[in-house]
Structure formats: C-alpha cells, structure tokens
C-alpha cells in the first residue's frame, strides 16, 4: 500500500481527466470549492501479455 494518503477527484461538470491528489484539507478544500468531487480511481488499462 502506498504511504501517500491520496484520493481521486473528478473534474467540475465532468469536463477533464480525474486527478489524484493528497488527502489534506489544504489541498482538498480549494478543489472541492472549485467543483471537483471524489470519484473512484480510474481503471488501469490492462494490456495482453504478448510474448512471442
């Protein structure tokens, strides 16, 4: 598990990519005020293991 305490936030109005940010009030509160909201981490793209 990562030692960093982070969360993922979705962009305001659903416009833009999610961001992973430090879960501190100093970081989170301005983003919440600006319209960011918590979301699930994006699913990592799984690449098939091509071993030829």
């Amino acid at each position, binding site marked *: 598990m990562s030692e960093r305490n*982070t969360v993922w936030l979705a962009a305001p109005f659903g416009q833009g990519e999610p961001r992973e940010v430090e879960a501190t009030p100093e970081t989170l509160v301005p983003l919440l*005020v600006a319209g960011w909201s918590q979301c699930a981490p994006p699913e990592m793209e799984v690449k098939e293991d091509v071993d030829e």
Partner: protein
Amino acid sequence: MSTSRLQEVLICFGKQKQADIATANTGVQMWQLRKLNAALANPKLNTENDAEEFGKGHEFPTQSFQTSWDAGSALEKYLSAEIAAWAMAFSLGKVVKSGTAPNFTYTCAPLFPANGDAAELPYFSFVEQIRPGAAVVLDRMAVGCAIEGWTISIGSGPGRANSKINVEFLGSGKMTEPSGIVVPAATLEKLLPSASLALTINGVNYVTSKNIVSLETSWKNNVRMDGGFFPGSGFQATGDATSGAIRGRLEFANRQGTLKFVARFVNGSTELTKLKNQSTGAAVLSLTYDANNSLEITWPKVSFATAELGETDGIVTVSVECLPMWDAVNGIVSAVAKCGVDSICQ
C-alpha cells in the same frame, strides 16, 4: 397492558446515503445512536376539503382529501466524532473520504451549483421503534430525509452538556410502516468534550489566552420544502393518487452560517478594534477525542458584525457575532471530521 415509556424509543438512521430520495436505506447502511431530546419524527398529513366548492347547496365540507405529507424532527446529542462526521457530511453535501480504519477522515464542504454541484442534499432514512415485533408500539421509517441545519454549542464546565450538537432534519414525506429494519447495536461514540477545544478567531488564540467562555456555530440549508412538490413528484403509495403527494427532491436555498462567541474582555483585547476596522481573518475551531477522532471546522474569512461588552458571572466579557464571508480559495466553510466509522455519506 404495560405502559410505553419514551426511554424505550430506538432510533437508527442512514450513516450511508440513499441511492436517491425514494430508495430507503437498508439495515446494514444504518447505525443506532442515542439522543437527548424527546421529539419524535411524526409524519404530518395535510388535507383539503370541498367546503368552498359550489354545487353542494351549502358551505360545509362533505369530503376530505389527502393532499401531502411532511416529515422531520431534530436530534439533540452530546457532540461526538461520529455524529459530527455525519452531520457535516450530510449537511454540507460534498464529502471526500480518505484514510483507513480506525482513522477515516471526512473532508466536507458545501455544494456549489455554479461549479457543477447538485442543489440536492444527500438523503438518509430515519427509523423510530418502540417494541418492534409482535407487541409493537411504534415502528416507522421516514424515507428521503435531508439535514436542514445544525448548531454546535460549546460551554464552560466539565459536563458532557458543555459540548452539544442539535441537528434538524426534514423529510420527503414518504413513510414506511412497519419499517422492516432490524435496528443495529448502538454505536459506541467518542465524545468531543469542551475541554478539548482549540480556537483561533481572527488572529487570536482564545484558548491559549484562557479567555473563551462559550461559543456557538451553526449551518442552515433553508431547504426549499415547497419546491419538493413538482408535477410527477409522486405519492405516499406508489400509483395511488388519493394517498397524498410526497416530495421528489429536497434542495437547499440560501444557506447561512453563523459563529458567535463570548470571551473575557481584558486589557489588550482586540474585539472592539476589529469591529471598528472590520478586520477579517480565519476562524478555526477543533475538538478532539484522540488522534483518530476529532472535528475541525474552518470559516476561512470572518469579520465581526457585533461586539458588545457585558458580564459573565461578574467578569467583564465581550459577546461577538461573526460574519462568515466567502473566501475566493476556500469558500465559506469546511469541516474535517475524523472517526473510526467507515462509509459515512458514501
């Protein structure tokens, strides 16, 4: 037949939010907490009659109609980390959960529709029971409730009553009776006593100076109750137009935050000067049980609206009402609530 006494009343309510206003919490999404006030969440049926209709030959009613339903009540409690986290999350509406057991952190801020947030608050179900089962006295669930507001009161003295929260909530009107909920075991709460207060307002640390006497801070959503009834908002019994309308949404209107305090007024006290100068600064108050259970509320920008000298137990004090103002970066208010309970308002 044994008498029912109000000490028997069990309450439980959604610690998790409902999927939508009409979908009740399930039992596993709820928690049981104790409360101090006797008020029950009585549903109120509003009716109309046909007294004013012409053609009857008289002015008297001959029929009564179920029009709509109201619901709501208040929770008065000693302030704990758990109820603080719940009240902040559900009342402000925007929550980020971080951390792991036993230290979950809920960072909460108000919703701002101008930045893409909803105007609807998170919903929860509220259950009241007295002897549920075969000898039931009361067993009902108000579905689609939202927090209208809260008031936190901190006083001087060692007792639990010196740190309290009063939460007012309103409902969509939808009721389920019997509730069908098995009330979970009571949650053991971690109290946030008055003696743990840390308080800085407008550049002054009132705890270090030993001058704080009492304070009160509040939030009110001024929920648009009439706006909950829109064409198609629904009925108490689905598909039964005679069962009375229920609300299909609970939106906040013009929200209000307050902060007021009483402090000893001594040589060098700056409250009157700051009132005259309309100085602004942050107000930060925190209450702590331990490292994993606490509440910190920040009003990022306040000025003093009034400051009046008086006395408390014969000692000269100043009573100050702050004016919380919008800060361009940090908004109007934020709360960081820590407790060991997972999934609050998730």
